[in-house]
């Protein structure tokens, strides 16, 4: 039986077209200076990327009582706290939108960004075992972590739609821009995480710095307050923080705030792309030492 099987397998391989001419050749040698991003290789490994995302999604809320509800609890309760202190007590303006919806519409993309940044910054260190034992484009690790956050985003976003319904707010046609805005948040999150995760391999201090960064960044982003508080040239410059563009974009697209964020978005997109491209090159440059140092 077994021999029969083997014979069958052999004859099958002989039937296959000979691959001798197009055998992939890889040269392994020391790399010097800045290296290419090898995006094509990353594309070849897209199935692995898919499985890593799938794993992160599956595992994220294992052994928790509330499970996926955490994806909603975090932004929702932050919104409650913001509404109490900034909305009710400090009377922060909200571009004519009820304050809870105003802040929650910003907290949904923000949480996606912050969670992604947080998870991805630690991703290389927490998966040291993988890095030391298998080869694949390392860019897949932080990318998977950030992308896995989209599931949480969708859950929190559904709650946002529910809140809008409750307040009788109808989304505008501009909601078609939402995928682009989400992509911008993703690029910002991944771009920052590439820098931080690569540094974290060498300097574990980064794990302690990340919570600070997200905390400062939260208040440096118009989440609890509108960017319309700033006069014009400054408001556009505010876009240097890409999350400012994302957050104002979300409000504009969903809630119809009349502060069309055109110029902010352009500045934000440029800033986010710079962050991502720079981060990717830095990551690739540091990558060669990951397996030895992590």
């Amino acid at each position: 039986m077994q021999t029969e099987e083997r014979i069958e397998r052999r004859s099958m391989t002989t039937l296959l077209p000979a691959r001798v001419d197009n055998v992939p050749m890889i040269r392994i040698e020391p790399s010097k200076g800045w290296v290419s991003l090898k995006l094509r290789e990353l594309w070849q490994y897209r199935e692995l990327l898919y499985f890593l995302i799938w794993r992160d999604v599956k595992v994220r809320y294992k052994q928790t009582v509330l499970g996926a509800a955490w994806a909603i609890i975090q932004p929702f309760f932050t919104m409650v706290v913001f509404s109490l202190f900034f909305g009710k007590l400090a009377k922060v303006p909200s571009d004519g939108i009820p304050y809870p919806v105003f802040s929650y519409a910003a907290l949904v993309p923000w949480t996606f960004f912050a969670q992604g940044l947080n998870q991805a910054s630690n991703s290389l260190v927490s998966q040291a075992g993988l890095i030391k034992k298998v080869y694949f484009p390392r860019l897949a690790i932080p990318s998977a972590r950030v992308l896995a956050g989209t599931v949480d985003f969708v859950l929190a976003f559904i709650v946002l739609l529910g809140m809008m319904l409750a307040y009788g707010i109808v989304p505008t046609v501009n909601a078609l821009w939402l995928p682009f805005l989400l992509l911008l948040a993703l690029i910002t999150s991944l771009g920052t995480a590439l820098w931080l995760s690569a540094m974290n391999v060498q300097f574990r201090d980064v794990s302690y710095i990340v919570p600070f960064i997200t905390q400062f960044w939260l208040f440096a982003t118009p989440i609890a307050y509108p960017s319309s508080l700033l006069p014009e040239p400054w408001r556009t410059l505010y876009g240097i923080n890409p999350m400012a563009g994302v957050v104002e974009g979300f409000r504009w697209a969903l809630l119809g705030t009349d502060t069309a964020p055109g110029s902010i978005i352009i500045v934000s997109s440029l800033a986010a792309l710079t962050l991502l491209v720079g981060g990717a090159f830095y990551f690739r440059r540091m990558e060669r030492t990951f397996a030895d140092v992590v």
Partner: protein
Amino acid sequence: MSDIAIRVESLGKLYRIGKLEKHRTLRDTLADAFLSPFRRASKLLRGQATGAAELDETIWALKDVSFEVKRGEVVGIIGRNGAGKSTLLKVLSRITEPTAGFADIYGRVGALLEVGTGFHQELTGRENIYLNGAILGMRRAEIDRKFDEIVSFAEVEKFIDTPVKHYSSGMGLRLGFAVAAHLEPEILLVDEVLAVGDARFQKKCLNKMQDVGQQGRTVLFVSHNMPAITRLCERAILLDEGKVLEDSPSHKVVSAYLSSGLGTTAVREWPDPAKAPSGDVARLRAVRVRKENGQIADAVDIRRPVAIEMEYEVLKSGYVLLPYYDFFNEEGVQVFTAVDQDPAWRKRPRPTGRYVSKAWIPGNLLSEGMLIANAVVITLNPNTLQFYEHDAVAFQVIDSLDGDSARGDWAGKMVGAVRPLLKWSTHFSPDQTTQTV
């Protein structure tokens, strides 16, 4: 198109050790940057030279390694711990970059440096097969196709939808190996993964690997298991201190390795208990080969008896121990197994203490050449492996041409795993030849 699968040319890998430690914090770097001028100044004041010694200490894990592997060749890599075997595989599988030289790889590479890499404890066996398969470079469709085969190879059918955290360690390892064994790359790099599981499963894995070799795949195989090397590989490379010491047919390399004192010798001792092979109950401290007069011997006369002794400690009292040896020749054939028969300790729970168990192999039994002993102790009821030390000791058996050994007056080549001296008798009847005319 040439028939070369791997070409390695003056490959080198430099590791920094000592000063540059893992996980240094920013504070350390800053403190170093700030303090080192002072340290240096104070050393200068005390009249100590500063210079090269101050620099980071480095070590060449691989140095000037060159070799070629042909398509379809199965090559073993041997050498003692720290010889650079694993580093070589890590460089060839692109996990880490070389510092010097280069390597060309022609074909799709699959590397198996650890069993069950990326297994997630919370995921089920089924989910982990997909995850692990993807990590090792299998396509999803490929995993779909081989799924049932993998599950039955691992013998975990009943638990396939149970989270892996509820698996026994043996089941986890089996599942991990099963996935890896179904990889079908053109070039397979394997590191020491056969040191897993029970003996029966190890054998199954070895057979699977042998199949792989017969399918015309190129395999680089790192192992401490010399019999496995000689059985699976036609050629072997011996590494020592990052350099290639020998590169020739595997049985030659293995016997060079064994007799060079780099690996197995007639005496193995573990002065440091922390590093000794050990289970909960018993710990191996030494294995020795002795001649009749008690001398340590790495070569014995084929006609004389030879003793293999193992010295071990019993750490917990009240267990029945079963020491035994597995004997292999340099072709990797298991010649026989010898189980402790000493009536003094048979079926008797042992108190803690140090024991030396000696097994005498009679003269005129073994074949000429290398004999390798694996030293094992198990505790009975339930049967639990305490330690299994591969290639614990080895010695040469030398046949003389004196005429009183089993070869008699024959001076030519003799094959066979054993060479017992048998009692021969010849009956003679004169004048009874049959006439053919």
